[in-house]
Structures are given as C-alpha cells and as structure tokens.
C-alpha cells in the first residue's frame, strides 16, 4: 500500500519535473550563451556552464548596444517597452473599469447597444484593423510617439467584460447602503467598488502588461526611429541574416533581459492573487 502510494506520488512529480525541464532548458541555454564570447558560441562547442563574460556582455547590451544593425543600447529599449506595457495595462484597466461601471450601474438610452458595440470589438484586434488604425495614427502625426504606440491598443473589450461580470456579482444592497450613507456614484466607485475589484484589477494588470510587453506587429509599424524601438523588436533585429555575424551573446542577453519584467510582474502579482483568493470577499 505504502509502496503504491509512493509510486503514485512520484509519477505526477516526475511528469511535472520533465515539463519544467523542457520549458526551462532553453532559457538556461540562453542564459549560458549570454555569458560566453561570440567565438565560443559560433564554433558550436559552447559548454553548458556559465562563461567568464557575464558582466562584460550585459554591460555592453544594456549601455552600448550591438555594433551593427540596432545602434541603441538595450537599456533605452527596455525603457520604451516598459512605458508601452505600463501605459497599455494601466490605460486598459482604467478605461475598462469606467465603461463597465457605466454599463452595469447606470440606466441610459442605448445602454445595451453600447455594451454590444464594446463586445463586438472583441472581433477586431489590432491585426484586423491594422491599416485603418495606422492611417489614423499617421494622420494625427502620432508616428514614433508613445501616444501612437499605446492609445490604439488601450480600448479593451476583454477587460470591460471581465469587470462587468465582476460588478454584477456585487450585491445590490451595497449600492443601496451607499446611497443611504450619502455616497454619490463616483464615491461609491472609489470607496466600495474599486477596493472590492482589486484582485480582478491585479489579474487584468498581469495579463495586459504581458500583452503590452509582447507587442510586436504594432510597434514594428509605428516606430521607425531607433530610440523608439521596443525590446521585442530589438531581439529580432539583432539576429541578422547569413553573411553578417550575429552577436549571439548580446542577442541572448537581450532575450534574458526581455524576460525579466514580465517574470517580475507575475511573481509580484501572484502574491496578490493568492491573497485575493484566500480573502474572497463580497
């Protein structure tokens, strides 16, 4: 009995460990590659232990950049990506909270029409409407600006729907108690609704930050100047075609650096998730 138990305990763990290894190994290799010099990597015999060039490679990546195609240091690009991802995430959450609040708590003409229009935009991600959106941004002279980079990505049906669903679970009595307690609509929003939504907001922030950070197509189109580039595009640009020599150690360092902020956000927010799950309160 005990034997079988152990086996049953062991098997799922083994599968999980294999899964982790499969996911983590390429990341490990990328990290190792970022600590060797270009020659060692390109001759195909890179060892699987950290090399001696860690500080040098990362210093060059962050503050100087590659010697060829992208001339900006990765530090600038990380900052660009960070501004873009934060603006998108915070903007999406703010606008979705307010629109969900309007749709759930106010009776105005064409309320359901407004809701369905928001709903329908689920079918229109940036890739579908890319040409008209580009045209608008270009006509507004927003190319190569953070506004052009972020505003078209901010409107979000997903977050609006999520918050709407959450708001509908908040008991009506809380609204009524607030009314009797003399709190107007916005006071109710900030004093009661927002504190109650904090875990949904955290969840949305994680999802939307990563969404914003990983944007590729839109920044590729909107940004032409080197100092406006985002890190995801930079990785692609660093890996140059056959004849030129790709500086793999820098490309790998950039990839590792590009991974850090989303990982950081997930790790930090995960604690809030758990807290939110334990203290479910409505």
């Amino acid at each position, binding site marked *: 009995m005990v034997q079988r138990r152990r086996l049953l305990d062991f098997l799922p763990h083994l599968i999980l460990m294999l899964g982790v290894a499969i996911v983590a190994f390429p990341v490990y290799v990328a990290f190792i590659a970022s600590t060797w010099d270009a020659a060692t990597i390109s001759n195909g015999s890179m060892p699987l232990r950290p090399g001696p060039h860690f500080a040098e490679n990362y210093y060059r990546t962050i503050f100087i950049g590659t010697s060829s195609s992208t001339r900006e240091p990765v530090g600038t690009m990380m900052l660009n990506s960070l501004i873009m991802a934060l603006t998108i995430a915070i903007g999406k959450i703010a606008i979705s909270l307010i629109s969900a609040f309007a749709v759930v708590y106010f009776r105005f003409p064409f309320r359901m029409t407004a809701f369905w229009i928001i709903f329908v935009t689920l079918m229109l991600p940036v890739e579908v409407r890319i040409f008209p959106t580009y045209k608008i941004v270009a006509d507004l002279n927003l190319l190569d600006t953070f506004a052009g980079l972020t505003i078209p990505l901010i409107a979000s049906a997903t977050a609006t729907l999520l918050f709407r669903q959450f708001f509908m679970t908040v*008991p009506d*009595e*809380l609204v*009524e*108690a607030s*009314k*009797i*307690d*003399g*709190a107007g609509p916005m*006071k109710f929003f900030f*004093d*009661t609704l927002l*504190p*109650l939504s904090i875990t949904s907001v955290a969840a949305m922030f994680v999802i939307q930050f990563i969404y914003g950070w990983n944007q590729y197509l839109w920044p590729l189109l909107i940004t032409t100047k080197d100092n406006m580039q985002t890190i995801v595009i930079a990785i692609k640009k660093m890996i140059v075609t056959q004849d030129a020599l790709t500086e793999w150690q820098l490309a790998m360092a950039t990839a590792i650096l590009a991974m850090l902020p989303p990982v950081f956000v997930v790790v930090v927010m995960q604690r809030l998730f758990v807290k939110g799950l334990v*203290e479910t*309160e*409505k």
Partner: protein
Amino acid sequence: MSEVRLQSVRKVYPGGVEAVKGVSLEIADGQFCVLVGPSGCGKSTLLRMVAGLETISGGTCSIGDRIVNEVEPADRDIAMVFQNYALYPHMSVYDNMAYGLRNRGTPKDEIDRRVREAARILEVEPFLERKPRALSGGQRQRVAMGRAIVRKPKVFLFDEPLSNLDAKLRIQMRVEIKKLQRALATTSIYVTHDQLEAMTLADQLVVMNKGQVEQAGAPITLYERPMTIFVAGFIGAPPMNLLDMPATGLPGLSLATPVSGPVTLGVRPEHLELSAENGALAIDLTVTAVEAVGAESYIYGALGGQGPEIIVRIPGRDLPAIGASLRAIARSENLHFFSRETGIRLN
C-alpha cells in the same frame, strides 16, 4: 417630529405590474410598525419606496412634515438594515459605522464618540477593528444596526433583518431590537414574513396581501378581530380553522344561532375545547393525527368523519387515540364570520 405618512402610494413597474396598489398608512412618531405578508405582497417594495430606493409611481410619502417623493435616500434622514446586512466587506467595523457620518462631513471627534457609543450599546466594542467577514452572523447583524443608529435618523427601516440568523439567535435579536427601539424611541418600519416576529415587535401591525393593506392596527386587535379571511388565516399559529358553510350546513357542525347566506366560519384552535356539552358552536370530529409539543398538544380531526380538517389545541399531553370521535365546542365571542364572496368580516 418624525411620523411617516403614506397617502395612496402606488408602485407600477415598467411592464405594468402593479406591486403596490394604493396604500395609505400613518406611522406615529416613535412607533414600531411591522409590515407582514406573504412573499410578493409588496411589503418590501413599500419599505424601499419609503427609503427612496424605488421611485413612487403615485401618491405621496412624507417623513415628518416633508413630502419626500423626490428626495434622495441620503437626504431623507432614514437608516436601513438589510437582510444580508450589506456591510462594506473591505472596511473595518468602525469604518462601516463611520462611513455615512464621514460622507456627511461630521467632525471627527463627533464620529468617534457616536461610533463608540453605538458599539457599546450593541456590544461590538471588541470587534471595531475587524473586517465583517471575521464576524458571526449575529455580530454582523449588530454592526448593521450600529451603522443605522450612529446616524440618529428620523426613521429606521428594517428589511427582514433576522431572516439570515438561526432560530435561537433570531429570538434573542428580536428582543434586542425591541429594547433598542424602545430606548431610542425612533419611528421604525420593519418588514418580515414571520408572523411571530410581527406580533411580538409591532405597535402597529400591518398585514398586506397582493399590494394592498388587509388590516392595520394593534397586534392583539388583529388577532382578536381579524377584519378579513386573509388576516384571520395569516395571524396565529397554528392557523385559524376556516370552514366554508353551505346554506344547508355542514354535517357534524351545529351552531346555536344558525347563519344564512354563503359565509365562512372561523374559529382558532386555542378557542376550541373538548367537551360533551353544547356551546355556541359544537363540532364532532374524528381524530386523524395528534401532535404533542410539550405544554400543549394539537389534535387534527376530520369534521363529521370525512369533512374538512379541524385543529384543536388542548393543554397538557392527554392525547386521544387516532380514530376516536370527539366533540369540541367554542363560545360565541370566539366565532368569526366572514362573507365568502368579499372575504370581509360580518360579525
């Protein structure tokens, strides 16, 4: 003064459903008024109209000397206790009670004084810093009451506040609510579907049915002289025996003074006694079931062997056998006659 006056108040929902059909009611200053009735009778809607949470479709509602039809809930000087308490889950007990005062710009030390006083009265002082989820149902109930009393409103509104508590706690809280209301002498309107709660709490008991007031008055008056069949059947437990009397009379039932026309005869189980003699009403029944609840027992019998069911309450536990034939009599002052067509009291 803070009397509440309703004048032919109506509520028509979009779609044409008329939930409240012209209710006129006067609740004197400091009076405890209980609205009772089956679910869907409009009692909660009426309360919510007084609170300002529902618009009033017709008629007027005034609190004190002011007609409040168009006044916001916050400006009506009322406080409400909800069935699910509606405490703000993210605020401490203290903040829950202080929130309404803060929104009104009450000075800080005044808020503190009032909250601590309410907490002392309701015995929730040890929990002031806790969140509502860390409290038991009874404690949450107290906090909800505390939130109402710190405001010192003109009117308290209670919407089935005890329904979520267990039976023992419900009785305890019922007594406390009554004591508190006596001490504060604040006009109160209390909605419940529990007739025992209604009987024990009310100064003025209002029985509602289908959006209308069936009868309003002192609880004992409603018990002794129900003006309609509905009130007769609703007030009292076990319910009053109601017998539809055909013109030819019912087999097994004899009245000292016969009645004419289609009437319904009502007699309470506690007003029937077992006796071989003749009274104003004498009924012969065959016992079908007996229930002993301790100090008293209930006998269920079929009138005249196979007629409608009659309940007789007898003191003690001296129970007859199932199938036994019995005679129960009642005195004339305990007989209620209602018109079968209109449901209105005749005697």
